[in-house]
């Protein structure tokens, strides 16, 4: 009996050791240089501690040294996947500060470019999410289509990734002949690929098994963490700045805001966050079509561009709906031609902060998918 009791005691003292895994900074699926310190119990994740700053390029310090025009290329390099949208936020903020009102043609071109870039961004997001789940082929299909969007940007701005195309008060160059046809072709292509990829990836049984009911983010937690974009909408909250406080000319278009409705899984899980992106591509296509129809080709896109940008002293907080969520720029001007301070509220920075909250208790393989479903860009997290 005594022997048994001793054995029993020993058995109760047996605990499984927790293992501390270092995911990143160099890891195939951290989407850049994020480092996650993960404590795992077997395969179950018990704690996640993110370490940032591996791409901290001192963006805000640079802004203080540059003139207002020189800031634009640096803004590009923040969220480098959707550079057009980033520029737009900055340019809009500056125009608000200086009281400029740009012409309709400029607004339409900006909307089209921003929506094209939104599609490009979502394509990368969905593609890399599939890659995290182990599906390599959809990744290449999406990149094949993205290339056509890049070509349009290249014809406009000369660059493939970081465009430096928007200017305070206008654009760097006018659109080229055949821009309309190119855009319509892209829209056609995007729709076709999305349909194809629905079968191959999004509604694939294994993919649904992997992503549905994983990494659930409840709506109230999402708001408390100030999530935005597809992460917030994936939780079922209809919040989109394009509708909620229509900036630019978004009130002229007819489009829907897709939210995670729990068609598969529950709202707030990885699958729903992902499907929001897929559906948003379709909405962007609709906006592009309407914009192309309404657009007037006459007019000069550079007539309001000032030689020297010198806003009055003051401050403005400008935010707009970027593909990843709302990017906020807090621009403080002291009346000189260099900004006093520019603070960027990185969308990915804020969205990433929910990772420790929502990844506890899931498997280690799920953590990678949760990270993928949030769609971060480290350039924006670390700035």
């Amino acid at each position, binding site marked *: 009996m005594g022997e048994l009791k001793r054995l029993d005691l020993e058995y109760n003292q047996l605990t499984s050791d927790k293992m501390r895994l270092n995911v990143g900074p160099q890891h195939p699926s951290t989407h850049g240089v994020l480092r996650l310190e993960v404590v795992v119990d077997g395969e179950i994740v018990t704690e996640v501690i993110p370490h940032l700053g591996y791409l901290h390029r001192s963006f805000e310090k640079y802004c203080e040294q540059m003139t207002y025009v020189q800031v634009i290329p640096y803004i590009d390099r923040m969220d480098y996947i959707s550079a057009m949208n980033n520029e737009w936020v900055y340019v809009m903020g500056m125009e608000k500060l200086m009281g400029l009102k740009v012409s309709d043609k400029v607004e339409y071109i900006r909307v089209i470019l921003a929506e094209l870039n939104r599609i490009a961004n979502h394509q990368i997001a969905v593609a890399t999410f599939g890659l995290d789940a*182990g599906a*390599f082929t959809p990744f290449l299909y999406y990149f094949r289509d993205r290339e056509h969007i890049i070509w349009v940007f290249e014809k406009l701005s000369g660059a493939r990734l970081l465009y430096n195309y928007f200017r305070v008060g206008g654009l760097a160059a006018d659109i080229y002949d055949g821009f309309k046809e190119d855009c319509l072709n892209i829209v056609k292509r995007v729709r076709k690929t999305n349909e194809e990829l629905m079968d191959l990836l999004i509604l694939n049984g*294994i993919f649904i098994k992997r992503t549905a009911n994983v990494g659930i983010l409840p709506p109230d937690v999402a708001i408390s963490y100030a999530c935005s974009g597809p992460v917030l909408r994936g939780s079922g909250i209809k919040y989109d700045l394009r509708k909620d406080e229509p900036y630019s000319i978004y009130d002229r278009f007819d489009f829907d805001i897709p939210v995670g409705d729990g068609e598969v899984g529950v709202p707030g899980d990885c699958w729903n966050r992902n499907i929001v992106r897929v559906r948003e591509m379709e909405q962007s296509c609709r906006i592009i079509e309407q914009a192309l129809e309404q657009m007037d080709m006459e007019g000069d896109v550079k007539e309001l561009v000032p030689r020297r940008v010198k806003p009055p002293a003051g401050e403005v907080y400008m935010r707009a709906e970027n593909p990843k969520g709302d990017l906020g720029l807090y621009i403080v001007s002291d009346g000189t031609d260099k900004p006093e301070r520019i603070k960027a509220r990185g969308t990915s920075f804020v969205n990433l902060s929910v990772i420790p909250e929502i990844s506890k208790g899931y498997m280690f393989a799920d953590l990678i998918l949760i990270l993928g479903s949030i769609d971060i860009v480290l350039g924006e997290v670390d700035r």
Partner: protein
Amino acid sequence: MESINFLYELLGKNALTITLVVILPLGFVLIYALVAILAELKTSAWIQERLGPMRTGPWGILQPVAEVIKLIQKEDITPAKADKLLYNAAPFIVFTGAYSAFAVIPFSEYFAPSRIDLGLFYIFAVGSISALGIVMGGWASNNKYSMMGAMRSVAQLISYEVPAAIAILSIVVLTSTMNLQEINKLQTGWFWNWFLFGGPGTLAKWWIVPFTIILCMIYFIAALAETNRLPFDIPEGESELVAGFHTEYSGIKFAMFFFAEYAYMFVVAAILTTVFLGGWNSPFGNLMQGPGWGVFWFIFKGFSVVMVQIWIRWTLPRFRVDQLMYLGWKILLPISFVCFLIISLYVMLK
């Protein structure tokens, strides 16, 4: 046993012959692995609308050769804190496990290196050795990712060995032999004599045909899991475990893992071919049947199965470790039991 080994008959049973018999499959494995690697590269490229390697010889067909030449030259790193003995032994054990299975694989009616009566049993026994090597390698690397990969690998092997064995066992009930050569001979004739379609017999066999097809699929799924191919490649799942159990291996030792994976792919394809697809038999009765054709049909069928494995790899996403277990224990195992029961019933009634 009437079947004869062509070489034994030609040269007599002496040391030279035995060496030849041993070396022939090795040569086959090496050439096959090179072809399979090329096939993998080119098939993936084709699926993804790319070209694949193009600059190594015409259409890149020398790519695997270049890779082997490169891998031989690479520095062979042993991590300082690794368990040296196990670390160095692991790749050899993995390759041995895959290669020794070739001892009983009947390439033709006239060539099977060894014709032991327990052929199937032997393959299952030595097939598990490679898992042992994977565990050794993963544990000895002293790397957390490697260890997780190794653990997953064992769990996976245990889960999928059972349904695979039961699927094969059902066919053994039908054939009442475990000798691979005998199983082949039973399937001579047209393709409806294959065990995929219930094996030889009268029309009365029709009601077990669905079950033999299901068994074939069960074995194929389990084989995918045992060879660590997508969608079951969680031991080396790139997106989470970096490179899994072979994270720390470089140079020629990594090449051995690489070769072993492809060799094992052919082993499972060979079993599938032999047991379900008629082995070296022509699908068209006596047409194209003969010693030379036998080798052709066997390799053709085996390679087709390998190509299907490659095709699946570039199409599907990956399972999670618990879902993999679920599939193995709760879906494949019960179904294979049911099929086993029905086939036993059929044999009893016959």
